[in-house]
């Protein structure tokens, strides 16, 4: 199994940590609103591609950018980053908040994104199956809401949580709030999803308690070339829970 190489870049004044592994066509993975389980789960993609995992400003090892107030600001941040990395065309994968970013990026950069994989993406307003309000979930209820398979946290998060862990979660929650406190979706996203003309995969865990898998149909209705795959018995952290989810993405991107 390959391992990540860590780069620390200055992107328009914001310290941005980028993890890379493997070689070949670039695959950029945009993570969700929590980084506590790390990114090793994505490494199998590095056996087939040049995997690039940038850490969002405001999360984990990257610096803070208080001026970010929308997902669109992240899109612009990543346009800057891709320029620095010299990447033009790419395959784009996004999970949860990262799915929202990836969809927004691809709407604006249709020709650069060759293939798009959205995993339990946030960002769409689906009134009949609404996204849970992450901010209102009491801390003790959060992990069981993310997955039924609590073993995935073993060895990755301190038990009981220590002060550093609690502060890190507060920081990421505050960063997420900068773009999602007012609404946990983009009210205009549905209007522009028709621009996603590249091959698009919508992947979901059937037991997702944060963003219900029923939202997959709404995405599929709005995106011209979408294929939907719902994996049974998996929750919101579908990529961490079992390796087959990542294999589905790898096959789709090839």
């Amino acid at each position: 199994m390959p391992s990540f190489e860590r780069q620390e870049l200055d992107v328009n004044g914001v310290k941005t940590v980028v993890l890379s592994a493997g070689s070949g066509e670039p695959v950029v993975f945009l993570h969700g609103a929590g980084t506590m389980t790390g990114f090793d789960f994505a490494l199998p993609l590095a056996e087939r591609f040049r995997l690039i995992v940038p850490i969002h400003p405001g999360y984990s090892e990257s610096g803070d950018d208080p001026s970010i107030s929308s997902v669109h600001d992240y899109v612009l941040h990543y346009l800057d980053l891709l320029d620095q990395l010299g990447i033009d065309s790419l395959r784009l994968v996004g999970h949860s908040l990262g799915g929202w970013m990836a969809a927004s990026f691809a709407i604006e950069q249709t020709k650069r994104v060759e293939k798009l994989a959205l995993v339990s993406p946030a960002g769409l307003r689906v009134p009949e199956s609404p996204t849970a309000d992450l901010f209102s979930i009491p801390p003790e209820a959060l992990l069981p809401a993310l997955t039924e398979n609590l073993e995935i946290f073993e060895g990755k998060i301190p038990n009981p949580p220590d002060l550093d862990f609690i502060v890190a979660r507060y920081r990421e929650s505050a960063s997420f709030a900068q773009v999602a406190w007012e609404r946990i979706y983009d009210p205009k996203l549905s209007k522009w999803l028709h621009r996603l003309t590249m091959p698009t995969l919508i992947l979901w865990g059937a037991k997702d308690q944060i963003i219900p898998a029923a939202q997959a149909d709404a995405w599929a209705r709005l995106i011209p070339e979408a294929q939907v795959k719902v994996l049974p018995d998996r929750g919101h952290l579908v990529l961490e829970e079992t390796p087959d989810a990542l294999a589905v993405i790898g096959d789709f991107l090839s």
Partner: protein
Amino acid sequence: MALPPDLQFYFMHFMPYADLPEDHAKYESTWVDFPNKFYDPVKGKKFYDRYFAEMVLADRVGFDGLVVNEHHSSPYNMMQSATMVASALVPITSRAKICVFGTPINLQYPNRVAEEYALLDVMSGGRTEFAFPLGTGMEYWSNATSLIPSTARARFREGIDVILQAWEQEGPSTFDGEFYSYRYLNSWPTPYQKPRPKCYIVGTGSPQTIELAAELGFGYSVVFIPIQAQLKTFEAYRAKTQQLGRTAAADDVCIMVMAYVADTDEEALAEGKEHILYYFDNMMRVPPRFLIPPGYVTNEEFRKRAAAANVHGTADWDTLTANSRVICGSPETVAKAIEGWVEEAGTSRVICNLHLGDMPHWKTVKNLTLFAEEVIPRLRKAGVSGNGAGRPAAVTAAAS
């Protein structure tokens, strides 16, 4: 050190909805998500009648000010619009300052706050004072989500600028800010007091807030941190004011005292303690996540607060009396305690919480009357030699 000659005593009321259901303890919080099915408007009306009567009494027995404040979605406080409550006090009181301490201005458009506060000042003939709170974290959970906690401080700062411009700069003027822009900022009315009523910033001890108060020429008031930490904030405020070439007035900082007075210490404890504990145990029951919504404080400040114990809703009497200005006792005992607190804080302004929690009307009347007639004159006498009795007794005599 002698007491200042112009000691002022302000009566503060939280106006709580002090009728919690028997099983209220099963709710983690009495704020934000405490169900409003427990609010009975008929009982609410009775509380208002009673609490307004207590405010009127405080005015008559000689308190220098009546203090109201504002909170939301909680039985803690029935003044969801502090200005509305203050407005009701205008025609039923005659001498005390009416102090709105205050509306979290982020919850309103600041031009409206400027107008409403000026309106109060004019209606009362210049009897108002105002304090500007950021608003507790809880207010950010229970108000429109367009109010993003991480921008609260910058928005607050700009809101104050709008208000001061509306009051002090001839209108119409324009304002071009990050959060608010005005084509015609033109407040009708302007304040009765010129250039403006006395203003305070209410903080919890952060250096930025202390500096802000000093820079604006506002007073500084601090809540919910231990006495020793409060005294440090006062020193910092005075030092900053000095640095800016001014000297802080004695009433530019104020202290809050929770007191119950009876004939003897034993009687005061027996009658008062349970209601003060009720306030801390029940009215202040808030889980950490509601106290600090995401982004409401910096990561560094969050680390400090997370490392400290959450004192909300877990009161024990010894800790309370060690960290806060809480006293139950005879007039002599209470006066002595307040004398010490006033001296160490170097203030001339004492805000007195004489109704707390579920204290019944008769105890509140007894408490604030004894405080005015027996405690205040003792302190005024200590402060002003040869000036005879304090003002409250004289006013009581005139009013009776």
